[in-house]
């Protein structure tokens, strides 16, 4: 009845009977999260840290085996840092900066990510997804001991959802039989195949790519450098149309072969056949052990809307992209970042429900940007016609000798957070000469400040950041407070704060949202303007 659909890497939330199962009528909770993947757990963590009671229902007792995501971007780490979960990720993860691009048997060029100085976190870390999820669950456990009202229920499978005007009723199956539970708000974080989406009969449209990718995670003692190697049309035998080699922690490498559409999956997944490909690639005499392997295909698609009354979709359930550019989990974490504070304010009665429509607007914009980027990468890596193949190879041929062609080489654009340009919550852009990168809607870039970093000083509520400008210690509007963070450019070595936040201006005032996106900015503090922007940023019009 309740068989596991996949094996577990870590058993972290074994089934335990809860009081709701014996209650006569369905017990009602403010928020129920459907799905305990990275996005569901992160949602629970964000809400729980705000003191909002939240129940997570997952049909397994822990984290699935097999890595899937390995690249976690800086923005993800910054968000996890706000939740107090980033330190172990950074500790375990592998940092890389050097990438090499090959075509057939020759190296076309290499690139260095050259991360900008003055950020707490690197551009990317490589970390197996099960570790990423485990660190989130461990942070939940710690937060629980400090009183965060989070409950994770393992082996609780949602079989039906009845969506009412002001709540949702769920049929839940457990090893001890079914029960019902009610939620004021339901978060659908049940993954790409989202049973909830199907229960509600909702659309999920986009482009399906007819290609198969064979992934093998292998453990090697060989001394391959910590670099990202990408081959277009590799010359080694039966390697497929492209190939990626990437380092993970624990001496494990991810190898990804693009093997085409007409393949016999069962046959390709036989150990001897995977080994034949790997041997051809690594050369004779390299010892390795296959830790995990899988064949996947992918889609680029999203739901038309992420909010359906009292149901909000997030992560893979709401949108899917190709893995090129590592935008899946990274964009899902940005969903959580966007949704957390909004739902928190709505549940607390401090903001209107329409604030949640802006979650849909802003994150659909984010999903579109991700889909656009990963579709472009896909079209470059797997040309769809003879002429696109011709142009792709012309770029690679030129890139070897001529620098101009290198920016055209697209083996996946690294995931960066989107700016909510023209977003519904943006206020005034009234900082004369202010830099474009910190315009309203943009995520705040980090900067070194005193002996720490800017982002860790921003907190989890609205912040009024003043740089060499006067302002009161707090601004309040309708029960929501923006607390002042007063900084001076003299505190920021090498002028990073001035360069990123002032540009040509000599002082500046920023209203920053709880998700660290800029709401509005000015030359000087003016109470009415700031209060109006705070009002607007909470959708109170």
């Amino acid at each position: 009845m309740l068989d596991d659909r996949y094996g577990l890497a870590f058993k972290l939330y074994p089934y335990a009977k809860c009081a709701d199962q014996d209650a006569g009528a369905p017990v009602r909770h403010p928020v129920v999260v459907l799905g305990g993947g990275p996005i569901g757990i992160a949602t629970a963590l964000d809400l729980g840290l705000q003191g909002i009671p939240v129940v997570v229902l997952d049909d397994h007792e822990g984290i699935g085996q097999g890595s899937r995501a390995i690249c976690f971007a800086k923005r993800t780490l910054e968000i996890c840092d706000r939740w107090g979960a980033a330190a172990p990720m950074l500790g375990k993860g592998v940092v890389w900066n050097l990438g090499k691009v090959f075509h057939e048997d020759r190296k076309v060029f290499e690139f260095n990510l050259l991360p900008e100085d003055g950020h707490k976190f690197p551009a990317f870390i490589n970390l197996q997804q099960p570790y990423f999820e485990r660190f989130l669950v461990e942070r939940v456990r710690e937060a629980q001991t400090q009183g965060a009202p989070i409950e994770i229920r393992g082996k609780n499978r949602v079989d039906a959802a009845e969506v009412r005007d002001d709540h949702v009723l769920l049929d839940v199956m457990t090893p001890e039989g079914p029960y019902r539970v009610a939620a004021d708000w339901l978060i659908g974080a049940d993954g790409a195949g989202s049973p909830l989406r199907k229960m509600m009969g909702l659309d999920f449209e986009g482009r399906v790519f007819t290609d198969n990718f064979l992934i093998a995670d292998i453990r090697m003692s060989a001394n391959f450098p910590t670099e990202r190697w990408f081959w277009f049309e590799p010359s080694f035998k039966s390697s497929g149309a492209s190939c990626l080699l990437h380092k993970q922690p624990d001496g494990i490498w991810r190898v990804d072969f693009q093997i085409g559409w007409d393949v016999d999956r069962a046959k390709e997944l036989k150990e001897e056949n995977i080994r034949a490909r790997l041997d051809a690639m690594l050369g004779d005499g390299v010892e390795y052990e296959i830790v995990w392997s899988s064949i996947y295909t992918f889609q680029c698609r999203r739901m038309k809307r992420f909010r359906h009354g009292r149901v909000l979709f997030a992560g893979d359930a709401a949108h899917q992209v190709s893995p090129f550019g590592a935008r899946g989990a990274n964009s899902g974490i940005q969903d959580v970042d966007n949704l957390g504070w909004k739902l928190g304010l709505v549940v607390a009665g401090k903001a209107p429900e329409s604030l949640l429509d802006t979650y849909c607007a802003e994150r659909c914009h984010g999903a579109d940007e991700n889909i656009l980027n990963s579709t472009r990468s896909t079209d470059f890596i797997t040309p769809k016609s003879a002429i696109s193949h011709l142009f792709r190879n012309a770029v690679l041929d030129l890139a070897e000798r001529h620098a101009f062609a290198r920016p055209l080489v697209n083996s996946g654009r690294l995931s960066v957070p989107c700016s909510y340009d023209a977003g519904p919550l943006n206020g005034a852009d009234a900082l004369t000469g202010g830099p474009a990168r910190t315009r309203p809607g943009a995520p705040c870039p980090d900067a070194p400040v005193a002996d720490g970093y800017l982002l860790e000083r921003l907190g989890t509520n609205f912040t009024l950041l003043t740089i060499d400008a006067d302002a009161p210690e707090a601004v309040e509007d309708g029960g929501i407070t923006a607390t002042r963070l007063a900084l001076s450019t003299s505190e920021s070595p090498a002028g990073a704060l001035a360069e990123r936040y002032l540009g040509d201006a000599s002082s500046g005032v920023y209203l920053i949202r709880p998700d660290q996106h800029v709401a509005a900015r000015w030359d000087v503090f003016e109470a009415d303007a700031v209060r109006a922007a705070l009002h607007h940023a909470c959708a109170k019009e």
Partner: protein
Amino acid sequence: MTLTLDPNLSDPDGVYCDLLAAHEGLSEAESHAFNARLILILGNHIGDREVLKQALDAAARPDR
């Protein structure tokens, strides 16, 4: 910036001759690859996406 569709080549006959000469001895596949590289090189020299879009448009509709 706008695309110029007025005569702009310093030596039209010479340029045309260079173009044909460059393709001499190439197979059809090699000529296609050559053209693709040439387009990328010239495109980079122009640089501006708007101008290139106008060029794409002009190439797509020679009758207009």
